[in-house]
């Protein structure tokens, strides 16, 4: 049991971390009233920037490279998401359309630039990815230490910490109150003197930053290079986590951890003798079936922020 946990938990954590970051981005955006189908694209952009930056500056930055790379990816993700913000907030475009365009644009741009810069469809492997470590002190705790704090990526804990920060920001600060108000009832917020457009821009840009972060963490902990198939569906899983988690930062985190755990379990089960005779396809689809069952059984109805998806037009009723 202990062994299994020690094997499952760290893998679930590394699998979940990029999803957590990105899903938190989704939470910010959707809480501000802007649907963000473009999470996948934001992750692609993050992965691309994270890898390219890492390849380019590894010699200069040494061991700091992955950290600086994910910061670069965060910044570029934030800037990139402004496209979505301008389209869906200022130009009042349908937010879903804009998000779909973001997905296509990011992948197109990423692979196009890769080919332009590297002359091939995929980059080399980075020399400075993230590595797992034992978290000092915490890993010494008996039982809990080895399971949760040995051989883990610091980025996984960064994701969890940011989830709590996101919760604090959204639910305890006036910024959060305003952001949520804008997503629930923008006109009420407007009449209260809150700049709806500004808040929504912030929401979307945060999603870009976190999506970029998620993508780069994925690339630098799991894949190590960039190609058209680096990010294949993780953004949609993050979107699912947003909804699964009922648009709540901790809920989204929980959902992402659930996905990671389910994947990890499905891999571990394949090695368990008892399950050896189970056709592999059942293990493969198990995480997805479990998600549906969990939704149907316990989670049930989830209501999106009331105004999400609706462009705010001043003075419209």
């Amino acid at each position, binding site marked *: 049991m202990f062994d299994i946990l020690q094997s499952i938990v760290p893998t679930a954590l590394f699998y979940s971390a990029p999803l957590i970051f990105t899903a938190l981005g989704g939470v910010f955006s959707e809480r501000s009233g802007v649907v963000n189908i473009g999470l996948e694209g934001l992750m692609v952009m993050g992965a691309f920037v994270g890898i390219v930056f890492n390849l380019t500056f590894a010699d200069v930055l040494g061991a700091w490279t992955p950290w600086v790379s994910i910061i670069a990816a965060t910044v570029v993700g934030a800037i990139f998401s402004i496209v979505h913000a301008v389209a869906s907030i200022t130009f009042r475009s349908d937010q879903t359309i804009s998000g779909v365009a973001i997905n296509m644009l990011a992948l197109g741009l990423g692979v196009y630039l890769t080919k332009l810069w590297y002359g091939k469809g995929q980059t080399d492997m980075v020399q400075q990815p993230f590595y797992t470590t034992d978290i000092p002190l915490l890993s010494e705790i008996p039982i809990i230490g080895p399971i949760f704090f040995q051989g883990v990526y610091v980025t996984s804990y960064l994701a969890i910490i940011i989830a709590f920060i996101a919760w604090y920001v959204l639910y305890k600060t*006036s910024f959060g109150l305003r952001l*949520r108000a804008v997503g*629930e009832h923008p006109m*009420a*917020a*407007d*009449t209260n*003197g809150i700049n709806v457009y500004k808040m929504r821009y912030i929401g979307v840009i945060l999603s870009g930053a976190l999506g970029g972060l998620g993508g780069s963490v994925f690339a630098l902990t799991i894949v190590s290079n960039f190609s058209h198939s680096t990010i294949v569906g993780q953004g949609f899983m993050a979107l699912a986590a947003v909804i699964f988690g009922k648009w709540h930062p901790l809920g989204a985190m929980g959902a992402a951890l659930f996905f990671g755990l389910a994947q990890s379990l499905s891999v571990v089960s394949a090695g368990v003798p008892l399950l050896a005779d189970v056709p592999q396809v059942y293990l493969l689809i198990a995480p997805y079936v479990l998600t549906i069952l969990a939704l149907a059984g316990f989670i049930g109805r989830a209501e999106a922020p*009331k105004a999400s998806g609706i462009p705010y037009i001043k003075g419209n*009723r």
Partner: protein
Amino acid sequence: MEYVIEMLNIRKEFPGIIANDNITIQLKKGEIHALLGENGAGKSTLMNVLFGLYQPEKGEIRVNGKKENITSPNKANDLGIGMVHQHFMLVESFTVTQNIVLGKEPRKKTGTIDIDKARKEIQELSDRYGLRVDPDAKISDISVGMQQRVEILKTLYRGAEVLIFDEPTAVLTPQEIKELIEILKSLTREGKSIILITHKLKEIMEVCDTCTIIRKGKGIGTVKVAETNPIELASLMVGREVNFKTEKKVAEPKENVLEIENLYVKDSRKVDLVKGLDLNIRAGEIVGIAGVDGNGQSELIESITGLRKARSGVIKLNNKDITNLSPRKITESGVGHIPEDRHRFGLVLDYSIGENIVLQTYYKKPYSKVKILNYKEIFNKAEQLIKEYDVRTPSVYTKARALSGGNQQKAIIGREVDRSPDLLIAAQPTRGLDVGAIEFIHKKLIEERDKGKAVLLVSFELDEILNVSDRIAVMFDGKVVAIVNPEETNEQELGMLMAGSKVNGMGEANGK
């Protein structure tokens, strides 16, 4: 003469319509100034201009004599102008406190909202003006009256000196209206100035000092309330004489159309709100239900119309059991329903007027055959009804969303009455409507009665209940506690019954 607010020659256009055409209104300090006009006259628009939500095409706004350009609600707030909107601007999932401080939150050093400080400030304000609220309750859990008090507190919290009320009483029960009027008075005592939009002439007469009247976007004039009377106000507003006392013959009730026995219905929180209710309505009579909000009226109607399941009991229509049938089956057995919440239930706002006109009948001939719609018939019908019911709309192809509340309501009434149901249920049918429209709707209800239909009228307006009903059923705590004859009762007595106290000899009456 010093004015706190002057709006001079304001013009505001919307695509295809001039909502405000050269309107002037001047507000003195400490006065309550009424703004009167038919539905769609442009009152809300004018006030939204003052509040910075719209920019006028022409005209000038002065605050305390100084010309101001009010570009946003923020600016309005800064100038001490606050507004309580017709549709509340409250975030449903937030608490009272959160709604009030939103945008101007007291913060701790850490950036966290200082909720305790907020609560204290709100408490002070609420004590000072008598605005009773529960600071920690969620908006979705509190009564409409309290929501309104939250709106008022929001403006006061922002230091408003001028308060605009857009039809504040339309959604309130008589008790709540009384409280609101007290609040308005206490506000002026504290030196605030108020602009009050209302369709209820009685209220204008009771609390207002002056009244500006607008008709079809144009300013008609300003009168001192002390020097006028309701009849004059009404005719100024509508441009013709208005009848206040609804003319009607004595009812000639016939056989029972609706019979309800021992009905129990739960509300959305799974608590019984209708508790053993008995009621019957006969052909050719209007039964009015009087009651304080929350005594089971909405649940009663929803269970008759099939929108909510009855827990037990029997509902019979023309001697046929319709308990817990589907809404469609019930409609087809002869029930028409003018719903309380017209935006939520009455209309598909993104459908055209024409498509909304057949919301209950689209699947029937001639509007469709073998499941295929016949738009020609649909729009013909719509043309006919908008004429007959005086629905003011650019065309039958216009989206319902674009119409003013009064006109939306007229379209619904046209749709429901036109089907000629045996039982017509009208829930708050005149809420938010101008006197002209109210008169029209009352006339229609009585016409239906005279055609031998049964009408169930639910209203918080005791005036309306007393005026239109042939019998009044008083609802209290989920039961009909009294049946009274409108000729033999008055508002005071009804008010007592609604509050649950029995009046000699009438408590057990049942009309059967």
